[in-house]
């Protein structure tokens, strides 16, 4: 019996391919501005709070693991937990946990932005500010979109009468997106916080 590829999953992957190119544009903006304004980087990149961002990065990476546990639960067809032990959790619990970690990441970024603005790095201040807020800001918007998608999926899980293949597929493609956003952030973290 031939297992036909899932059209939703393949379509999502192709769309994520186009998202790679969207972030390629942002990376290109960042590198171009950096090569034409070395002074702005030398002056402002040192202000970044790298340990804070590193902790935030780890939180986002961990959320990807929780998301994968949710996918495995969805593939088992297990919606709710059978006990409080994590091995008995269903996809609802794992997805809520993923959501919480993702929300902490976005909140951390809001806090970071507020601190940086108070230290004089603004989006219209100079090239460094523009590059920093455009790249991390578009990423944060993507994370927020992923959080909204997770809420919609959780709502679906509660609304559906019989959890089936279609609902599991939706959760799996949301996890594809979440892993993608996570990987992009690892790239951004190394470029913006480590390489500077």
């Amino acid at each position, binding site marked *: 019996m*031939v297992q036909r590829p899932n059209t939703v999953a393949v379509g999502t992957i192709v769309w994520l391919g186009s998202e790679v190119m969207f972030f390629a544009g942002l990376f290109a903006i960042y590198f171009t501005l950096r090569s034409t304004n070395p002074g702005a980087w030398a002056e402002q990149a040192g202000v970044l709070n790298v340990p804070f961002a590193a902790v935030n990065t780890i939180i986002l990476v961990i959320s990807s693991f929780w998301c994968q546990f949710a996918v495995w639960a969805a593939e088992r067809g297990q919606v709710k937990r059978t006990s409080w032990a994590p091995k008995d959790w269903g996809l609802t619990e794992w997805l809520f946990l993923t959501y919480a970690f993702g929300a902490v990441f976005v909140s951390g970024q809001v806090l970071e932005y507020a601190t940086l603005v108070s230290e004089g790095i603004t989006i219209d201040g100079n090239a460094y500010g523009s590059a920093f807020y455009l790249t991390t800001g578009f990423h944060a918007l993507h994370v927020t979109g992923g959080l*909204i998608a997770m809420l919609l999926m959780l709502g*679906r899980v509660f609304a*559906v*009468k019989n959890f089936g293949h279609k609902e599991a597929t939706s959760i799996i493609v949301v996890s594809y997106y979440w892993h993608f956003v996570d990987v992009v952030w690892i790239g951004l973290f190394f470029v913006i916080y480590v390489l500077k």
Partner: protein
Amino acid sequence: MRANTNLFWILTVFMVLAATAYTVWSLIWYDGQLEWVGTVAISLTAVLSAFLAFYLSRVHKAQGAELPEDRLDANIDDGDPEIGFYSPWSWWPIILAGGGALLMLGLAVGFWICFLAGALVLVAVVGWTYEYYRGYFAR
């Protein structure tokens, strides 16, 4: 499916070569200065191609055999499975598109319109997601 995978691998190799040539050429042309836009864009196009090639090869392996459309001895009705769920008709996509258009209009002419547009987008997204999860035809 094998042909699709190979096409994307060929594209990957081509893009890697193009990125290398572009980078070296820009280094020569600008006296040791890298031209970042093309270098990043072409390199990540290689990543994009490799990503799709890898994914398609995994899907190909997981399906266990060739699809009817990839076989010379298959009949038309062999390729007539249940492909998925498709809504016969829905108003929600056009409402969402309207919300998006209004959002852009708000950015262009007056930000207060964005608040109305945001509400419309929210209603459309929720409406679309839950269209088949409520009412008479709820799943």
